[in-house]
């Protein structure tokens, strides 16, 4: 079987079926805010699918549901870790934690800084959670920070005081340091200048070529055109109010 034929035969890494989400604000008299309904999407290895649509259409909400950070009201989020398929929408906490350790990486827009943990430790953590020894994890973290041009003098400093662009690169380094088969990218280049945007874009392209399946939000149209293999317009999944 040729390489291409095998790829076509491989099952999708991620399948989303009939996914729906609304928020009920009990402090606002039970106000219900529907976000998305009937989201269907399949993500293959080596694909980078851009979620498109206006602000508020539910792009970040979809990413967060795939990561298990938001609950789903209905539908399925099937993640293939190579051994089994797990439905994130109904999985137990420890199953979701296991997927986050081995299978799904998430680069959020903002870094949630932990007091006292230096940048190098923040980036190394996904590897440490997989049981990589400290020295090896720190070496890999250092290489990733170097690649993303985070100045060496910052590595031993907790990132809370870093600039927006520096924090974002620490966040990206953390997301890319471990070889996650699925990566969720929420505006990975939003606060970066042209030079650093190029560094991140090259990293994303390299991983995509290596077979990582990516689902991302890219507001910058140039970045999206360069990185995404296709786009899915989320406004098609708008929930009825």
């Amino acid at each position, binding site marked *: 079987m040729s390489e291409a034929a095998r790829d076509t035969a491989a099952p999708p890494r991620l399948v989303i079926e009939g996914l729906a989400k609304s928020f009920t604000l*009990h*402090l606002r008299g039970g106000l219900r805010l529907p976000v998305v309904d009937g989201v269907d999407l399949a993500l293959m290895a080596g694909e980078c699918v851009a979620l498109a649509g206006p602000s508020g259409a539910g792009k970040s909400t979809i990413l*967060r549901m795939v990561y*298990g*950070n938001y*609950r789903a009201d209905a539908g399925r989020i099937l993640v293939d870790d190579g051994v089994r398929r797990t439905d994130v929408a109904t999985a137990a*906490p420890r199953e979701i934690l296991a997927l986050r350790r081995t299978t799904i990486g998430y680069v959020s827009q903002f870094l949630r800084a*932990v*007091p006292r*943990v230096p940048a190098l430790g923040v980036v190394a953590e996904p590897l440490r959670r997989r049981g990589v020894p400290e020295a090896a994890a720190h070496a890999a973290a250092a290489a990733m920070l170097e690649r993303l041009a985070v100045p060496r003098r910052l590595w031993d400093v907790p990132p809370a005081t870093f600039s927006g662009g520096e924090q974002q690169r620490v966040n990206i380094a953390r997301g890319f340091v471990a070889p996650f088969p699925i990566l969720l990218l929420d505006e990975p280049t939003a606060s970066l200048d042209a030079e650093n945007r190029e560094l991140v874009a090259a990293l994303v392209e390299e991983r995509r070529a290596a077979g990582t399946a990516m689902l991302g939000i890219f507001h910058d149209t140039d970045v999206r055109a360069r990185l995404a293999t296709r786009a899915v317009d989320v406004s098609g999944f708008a929930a009825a109010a």
Partner: protein
Amino acid sequence: MIAQTTAATTEPTDIAPVAEDAAGLPILTAHGLGKDYGGRIGCRDVSFELWPGEVMAVVGESGSGKSTLLGCLSGTLPPSAGAVRYRMRDGAVRDVFALSEAERRHLKRTDWGFVHQDARDGLRMAVSAGANVGERLMAVGARHYGAIRGEAAAWLDRVEIDPARIDDRPTVFSGGMRQRLQIARNLVTRPRLVFMDEPTSGLDVSVQARLLDLLRGLVADLGLAAIVVTHDLAVARLISDRILVMREGRVIEAGLTDQVLDDPAAPYTQLLVASVLQP
């Protein structure tokens, strides 16, 4: 760091090897757990499974029943209903309240740790820091003075207390140091499950951050399962994988910590999350 403290233990103790954490079974199970105080509800109908290596936070306001629940889970408060089952090192699952008093005491001295809010409840204030740590080792059969002292010094170092303070009593320690000493005393026997009751709430904020960071590291390095009662959602977010939200003695919401805090479903959880002050 693990290698260093392991090396300090040169003599055998009567802590049995762990049989089957690899089997992937829960370490602690609560089933329909309830506690009444003469008609008043302490906690009611609490059920969950805790797995090896999981850290679960129990949050809620004062009077929500979280301390009562912790008392029942840790074998201190006999429940009025339901059961707590613990998987022992040999793999046998035992009802915690069906154990003999001696068996339960042994469990508390070896397999379990309990970190109290007030370090004075968890430490012996009249004996030295070294003795506080060494005592737990002696309780599991360590007898060699040099080895015990060596292990105690290694643990003081690990919780960031200068080992030169080994002969000082905790009465001369700051609140943060006492709390770290209490943690060392609990972890020296390599427990598999640690209960913590508001471990950081009596401390200054900067001291709190240091302690939380230390706890996070230790829990991860040792692969501990832990149940942490706290009223502080930021503490829960930082330290736990899972969370139970309690109100009026009942669990009103449970799940992954970041999911419950970022997408709270129950009205009361939404109120709790919305009430946190942002600096």
